[in-house]
């Protein structure tokens, strides 16, 4: 049995899976080979260490599930935060412009109400032939009314007729 053969055998499968025959052959070989003895001892100790290490099992703590569920909720909250920020970045300018227009319109409405003088109200019983109405409408000429020249012509025509 060569040195390489033993080392190859040690690395091929777990030490605990070596058959009794293989172990006996290895033990007879390592009496004459220091290099293989060192490898064999190391493989045996490594196997023992791994077994001891795998016996140390971690227990699930009592409130582990609660802790995980709380962590999920927390991450959802932090994940929602940036989503709102992205929405604001995308539509923030539009929303700001709309808000500004609304403020301006509101301001203009209030200002115009305060600045306009009250409109004089005509009396419901006003007379179209009253002195007030005549004064107010003095500049206007009704289509049905005669012009001053026509009135004078008519007056003079009547005087002529009387003279004759």
């Amino acid at each position: 049995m060569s040195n390489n053969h033993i080392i190859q055998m040690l690395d091929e499968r777990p030490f605990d899976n070596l058959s009794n025959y293989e172990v006996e052959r290895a033990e007879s070989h390592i009496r004459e080979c220091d290099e293989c003895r060192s490898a064999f001892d190391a493989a045996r100790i490594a196997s023992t260490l791994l077994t001891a290490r795998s016996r140390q099992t971690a227990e699930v703590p009592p409130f582990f599930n609660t802790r995980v569920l709380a962590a999920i909720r927390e991450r959802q909250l932090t994940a929602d935060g940036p989503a709102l920020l992205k929405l604001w970045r995308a539509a923030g300018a539009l929303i700001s412009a709309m808000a500004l227009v609304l403020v301006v319109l509101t301001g203009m409405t209030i200002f115009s109400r305060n600045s306009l003088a009250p409109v004089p109200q005509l009396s419901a019983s006003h007379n179209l032939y009253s002195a007030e109405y005549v004064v107010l409408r003095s500049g206007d000429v009704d289509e049905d009314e005669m012009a001053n020249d026509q009135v004078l012509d008519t007056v003079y025509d009547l005087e002529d007729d009387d003279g004759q």
Partner: protein
Amino acid sequence: MKPIRSDTLSIEIEQASDLELVNLARDGDERAFEEILRRYSPKVFRVAGRFFHQQAAIEDAAQEAFLKAYTQLSSFEGRGSLEGWLGRITANQCINMLRSAKRRPESTVSDLTDRDDSWLDYQMSGDSTDRFQSSERGRDAADLAEKVLNELSPEDRLVVMSIDGEQVPVKDVAEMTGWSESKVKVRAFRARRRLREAVEKLLEHRRSPVHEKG
């Protein structure tokens, strides 16, 4: 990530299949995911325990694995087992944690204590009828194992801990890692050699005059 909600279900959560639980949890049902936690926390802790020795580190890794599983529920199609899927997520999570943090190992072979020396003396005496003698000896061995395992890469550590330490079948390790079975065997061969060399280094270090002075 869909929001969690709690509502009444027509089916009994505890009797639901894994796939039903995944579908319910995917729709935001909190009780379904809580049931997944209840069923598979021990398995996830066992996988994380192959990478980390301290309880706090194992808990952190397990929690991160479940958080990742929750966000990736839509990718679980039910072709493989939920247990295998969670084991794979946990293994990847632990490997990433070890790599990204580039954390200093909790201890190395150069940090041998008197208890380590004592345990090695006992092992080298040739009396292996009782490997651990007592639970205290077992703890010493586990601590020393951690120092040796810290000399390996996370992948080597997973393979050698699973196959040699816990007798996990190669097929299950392949499912957990996403590797082919032949790749797992090759990886195990190399990992075993590195572990053996690390122990030889440990034995040499123990015999060295510097260590004797220390």
